[in-house]
């Protein structure tokens, strides 16, 4: 009998060892060698899931590993909609990378959770004056910078030249003109403009923010409370409700960023709002349409209102507190900012990613890119918008409130309530404002 018992136990242990074998992703621990040579493994999460950007980053990593034979960089990609869950659950379980790209709105939460390390030494090394001050300030807390911008882009209005021309319309400069044009162009299977408010993304917040910013307002008050019931914000809500009802596919209440953009890429919408990423998207989906797209600054409320920009995104790099080798991360980041590598990286999505450091856009290598040459007007319009804008809610400096405004889908659900349940605009806005303020309160 005993022999059998032993047999069973061995069986169980065998099963156990199979299990252990398939759990094998444990990180090997290495320490920096004494002579200052870099040694160790780092993990780099980034959002460039496919195509040229993925390749450029991989190339840079390979080169870096060649130069530092004791370093191993493993790269892992994520898609933006997954990112919030990915890093929050990761932080809860200790599964965060050594370095990653991020979104400015989340950087504030990361700083607050003490999850990332200061980057000032690296910023100084590359040259603090090369970065735009406002971009650096997005990752700043108590005078210390925790993130550095990798590239910048800003939201502008995209239109279809051919459709406007056929209808005898001008490029709209005000929201009223925009609405008129969008309504006129909604016919024959084409939608004037899709209004996206899927609650898994922040698109409705973004669209409402355009309108509110165009009137000089903000979605947050000066003391960082939600501000959705101002007359300006209510006008903005009504404006987009009108666009949804008259010019948008009804499914757009569920749309996230890609659903929205894809419609434009495929030539199904006449107007859209996005950064220069629109160009590569159209080029990939409908190559014949590339000549027919153009961009303009976001519409204003009145024609003679001052120029403005609603949303600039300076996509940053961060190094995580959990990292055993911040020095490797920083050395690698420095490599990414080297002129050759950096220009190659930007050229992966020309005009989509604008340089976050000065002196790049003047170089011959940057200028000579075919797409940059072709869309030089667009590049200039977006570059101007980049200089004037901030992240959503960052008009009052970076704040957790701004982050929650983006990540919790409250404004999206508010629009859904209005659009699908027919809730009254003021009531819905008040409820959303209360919900946001409650969330802000819990966080404190």
């Amino acid at each position, binding site marked *: *009998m005993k022999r059998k018992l032993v047999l069973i136990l061995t069986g169980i242990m065998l099963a156990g060892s199979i299990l252990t074998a398939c759990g094998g992703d444990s990180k090997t621990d290495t320490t920096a060698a004494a002579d200052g040579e870099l040694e160790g493994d780092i993990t780099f999460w980034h959002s460039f899931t496919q195509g040229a950007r993925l390749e450029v980053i991989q190339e840079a990593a390979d080169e870096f590993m060649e130069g530092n034979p004791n370093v191993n960089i493993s790269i892992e990609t994520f898609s933006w909609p997954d990112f919030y869950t990915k890093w929050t659950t990761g932080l*809860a379980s200790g599964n965060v990378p050594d370095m990653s790209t991020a979104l400015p709105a989340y950087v504030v939460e990361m700083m607050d959770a003490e999850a990332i390390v200061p980057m000032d030494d690296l910023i100084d090394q590359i040259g603090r004056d090369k970065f735009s001050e406002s971009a650096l300030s997005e990752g700043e807390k108590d005078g210390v910078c925790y993130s550095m911008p990798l590239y910048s882009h800003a939201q502008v209005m995209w239109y279809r030249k051919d459709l406007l021309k056929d209808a005898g319309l001008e490029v709209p400069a005000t929201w009223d003109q925009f609405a008129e044009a969008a309504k006129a162009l909604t016919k024959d299977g084409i939608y004037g403009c899709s209004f996206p408010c899927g609650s898994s993304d922040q698109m409705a917040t973004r669209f409402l923010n355009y309108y509110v910013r165009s009137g000089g307002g903000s979605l947050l008050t000066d003391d960082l409370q939600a501000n959705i019931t101002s007359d300006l914000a209510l006008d903005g809500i009504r404006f987009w409700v009108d666009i949804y009802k008259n010019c948008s596919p009804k*499914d757009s209440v569920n749309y996230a960023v890609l659903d929205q953009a894809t419609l434009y890429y495929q030539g199904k919408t006449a107007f859209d709002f996005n950064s220069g990423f629109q160009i590569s998207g159209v080029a990939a989906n409908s190559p014949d349409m590339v000549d027919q797209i153009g961009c303009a600054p976001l519409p204003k409320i009145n024609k003679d209102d001052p120029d403005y920009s609603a949303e600039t995104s300076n996509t940053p790099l961060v190094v995580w507190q959990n990292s055993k080798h911040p020095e490797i991360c920083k050395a690698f980041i420095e490599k990414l900012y080297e002129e050759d590598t950096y220009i190659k990286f930007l050229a992966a999505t020309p005009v989509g990613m604008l340089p976050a450091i000065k002196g790049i856009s003047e170089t011959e290598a940057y200028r000579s890119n075919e797409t940059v040459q072709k869309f030089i007007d667009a590049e200039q319009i977006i570059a101007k918008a980049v200089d004037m804008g901030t992240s959503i809610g960052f008009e009052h400096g970076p704040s957790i409130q701004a982050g929650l405004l983006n990540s919790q889908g409250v404004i999206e659900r508010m629009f*859904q309530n209005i659009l699908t349940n027919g809730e009254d605009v003021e009531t819905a806005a008040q409820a959303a404002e209360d919900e946001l303020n409650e969330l802000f309160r819990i966080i404190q």
Partner: protein
Amino acid sequence: MKNKRKQFDYVRWIFVLPALVIVGVLLIYPIFSSLYYSMTTKHLIKPAYDFIGLANYQAVLTDPEFFQAFFTSIIWTVCSLTGQILIGFTSALAINRVKHGKGVYRTLMIIPWAFPTIVIALSWKWILNGVSGFLPNLLVQLGICGTLPQFLSDNSMVFITLIFINIWFGAPMIMVNVLSALQTIPQDQYEAAQIDGASHFQQFYHITMPHIKVVVGLLIVLRTIWIFNNFDIIYLITGGGPADLTTTVPIYAYNMGWGTKMLGKSSAVTMLLLLFLLLICVVYFTILAKWEKEDK
């Protein structure tokens, strides 16, 4: 002899022990753990938390959104279950009746059961896509609809669409089980009834029903629990939207735990969910036990 008996006991326990340990560790422990967390301010990211007694339960039970989710869950369960039983049952009877093609029908109709939820979600989202979907465009081309119907965003259609998809997925399971129960019924009973001149309905009521009653009852119990607990189908198709129209209790709990990161409060929601299901089961099993007794 006595010694031998002891050894005997020992061995029979070895057979069941691994399973008991797994069930104990993986199912009993989490219940207590959840019960504990449900009384704390446990947060997804922040390490520190406090014990707050029943405050979470109080907060949940005074939240109108919870009751809305609960109500949605009930409708979702009752409608899906009725549909699944109806379709599953009638299709099993039909297959049992026809002479040719039994196997073909069965094989074709069982397919949805094999679908991973993510593929259920993607395939239906694609078929029903409000711009390029097959069905909306087909309905417009056939002239049935004037504009593209929006199955997944129109507030009068989205919930019905979800229930339809759930019926599509769940009916095969009922069908297969009922079918196999039907095949255990001795044919001579029907023959005898036919000689006595019993109508189809009478045969069904007096012969078929008593034989499959218990199987159907059990299926209803299992399906009720499964549908009530189901998270993936709704999460992957609508995410609970638009405007929380399709937010059921599991979705509500998930958003609470991983959206607003309040794991403690989310645990309280899931404990209430379990409590409710227990209640339902007690009722069901009482009825089932009565039926089984009648059988004997």
